[in-house]
């Protein structure tokens, strides 16, 4: 009877497609941008091919894990400034466990590292919930704690990594054009996220981030959901730490630039910092784009100091274009 919502339930297929497109417009935009940039890269550097894509995927791996970790927490209405530190800690933990150990023990070490990541995440989450201190403060404080702990484990870069772990992200699957690093990333993220996403606990993550009060009143266990989001963040951070192990073959106790990179990547990837909105795939593509910008600037031989300037400008430009598009799309 009311006009506003009286569209039919069985909408024509075209309408469904249109809606899916509209809802994922940001993601689509990113995919197009990535494709365009790959093309551009090929033009700048005609030899850019399978090897280039392989190294792009490998370069993106740790950043992508960091971004995914950050995205989960931000979707649930938090933020985790300790992602970089957790990556450093899990990285050195893995490296010191695998130091001078057999290949088989590497599997045990990987499992233990992932468990460590979850434990770190749960600690973050529980402290956020129990202390009721804003997420940003808790995780900022804990970023010092985890970084200090990393230094306790290894006071200087060292340790080792199982050869199979180092080989895992190298090369291609079936053909050299499908980089294993990318497959590895999608499998790891998908295996955790896909089963969750459509479940109540996955929806609860979005609900808590979107409107905490409404979620609470809908019977969502707020505390448990928050802890879950941080646990997932810890898990993905541990994967990021392992990706660092795989890339470098050692453990480095000083946190890399991953925390801020992850925040930048998720915003580009379409996750709203206010919580409740966005997905993980967009973040992964955003990371590829950010990384490819660097590669292109290197290929172009742009003065590296100007390259930094350009990188900053591109970041702003992407978000700005997105905002303009979003404004346009707003119902008239």
């Amino acid at each position, binding site marked *: 009877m009311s006009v506003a919502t009286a569209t039919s339930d069985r909408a024509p297929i075209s309408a469904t497609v249109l809606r899916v497109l509209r809802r994922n417009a940001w993601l689509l935009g990113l995919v197009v941008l990535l494709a365009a940039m790959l093309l551009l890269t090929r033009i700048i550097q005609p030899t850019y091919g399978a090897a280039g894509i392989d190294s792009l995927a490998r370069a993106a791996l740790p950043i992508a894990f960091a971004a995914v970790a950050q995205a989960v927490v931000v979707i649930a209405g938090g933020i985790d400034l300790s992602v970089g530190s957790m990556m450093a800690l899990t990285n050195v933990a893995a490296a010191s466990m695998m130091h001078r150990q057999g290949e088989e023990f590497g599997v045990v070490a990987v499992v233990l590292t992932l468990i460590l990541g979850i434990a770190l995440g749960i600690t973050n989450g529980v402290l956020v919930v129990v*202390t009721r201190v804003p997420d940003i*403060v808790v995780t900022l*404080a804990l970023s010092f*704690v985890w970084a200090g702990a990393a*230094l306790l484990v290894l006071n200087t870069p060292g340790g080792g990594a199982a050869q199979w772990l180092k080989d895992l992200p190298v090369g291609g699957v079936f053909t050299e054009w499908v980089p294993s690093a990318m497959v590895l990333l999608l499998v790891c993220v998908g295996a955790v996220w896909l089963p969750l996403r459509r479940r109540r606990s996955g929806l609860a993550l979005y609900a808590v981030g979107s409107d905490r009060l409404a979620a609470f009143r809908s019977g969502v266990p707020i505390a448990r959901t928050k802890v879950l989001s941080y646990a997932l963040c810890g898990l993905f951070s541990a994967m990021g730490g392992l990706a660092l192990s795989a890339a470098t073959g050692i453990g480095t106790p000083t946190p890399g630039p991953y925390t801020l990179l992850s925040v930048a990547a998720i915003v580009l990837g379409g996750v709203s910092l206010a919580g409740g909105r966005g997905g993980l795939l967009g973040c992964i593509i955003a990371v590829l784009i950010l990384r490819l910008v660097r590669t292109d600037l290197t290929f172009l031989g742009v003065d590296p*100091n100007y390259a930094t300037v350009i990188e900053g400008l591109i970041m702003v430009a992407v978000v*700005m274009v997105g905002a303009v598009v979003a404004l346009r799309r707003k119902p008239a």
Partner: protein
Amino acid sequence: MSVVEGTTSSPPPAWRTADAWQRLFRERPIVPLLVLLGALVVLYQVVQPGTISPNWVGSIIRNAVPLAILAACQTLTMLTGGIDLSVGAVASMAAYVMATLVPSQGPVIAIVVALAACGLAGLANGIGVGIFRVHPLIMTLAMSLVVLGLMTVYQLIMVAAGSRVPPEIRTLGGGTSFGFVPHNLLLFVPLAVGIMWALRRTGFGRLLYAVGDNERAARLSGVRVWQVLVALYVVSGLLAGVAGLVYVGITNVATVTLVDKYVLTAVAAAVIGGTSIFGGRGGYAGTIVGAIILSLLTNLLTVLQMPEAARQVVFGAIILAVAAAYTRITSEA
């Protein structure tokens, strides 16, 4: 329609005193912060007896002042629900530009140009955030990349131009009177009073809270939000510039990354001081105490001679404990 009768008649006295304290804490959040600061000082006295002296207080305050100015940028931007991650790069720019211009232009022009550059960076931030609606975190992060890149280029141009920090800046930033009164208080006290006054007693201050609380409501009340944001980020850039000059007064050497490390510490100072990162709530007085707490903490851990790893762990743990205690004390039942 009043419940005051209820309060006066029914509840037992013990409950009332607890409630009165709670209310005092909630309405004057600065009080529990000061209590926490006092507790830290006592702790200091316990673990490191005898270090507390006028000299020591002076050095804590001298270090806290530039951090507090940097944290002012965060406080103001956070009130609107934003954040300014470019303050590190911008403050370093102020220091570096000033130092490199002094030999050729003299201190006055050098300082003016340096601050103008900071205002310009702030303006760019403000335009990005206020007009093009770029998320402040991204805008200011990107701005810090832009500024760092440009400053590195500038550095290479100016490498043989000589650089000098004028004695006025050095005295103001790093000097002390009677051996323990830091000169930077001369700059800071009026600045802080000004900021607190502006937040409470000017239309602009009100609007910062309003925009951060509910931008839409502000708009409906006739506020042109972009004007507020542009002005805000310019102010933030200028404050960052001032902080940079105070820092360089202490170090006497300018680099293009001089202040980078203090950005997150400044955020921490503002948040410990009770300003909400979601906007609409907080104030500068708390931030100042937050900066002093952090300065004290850093000092304590240095003096304790802990290994670096343990130092970081303890630093984080204490920040968390302070914030948790503060939240507990000021929160509602």
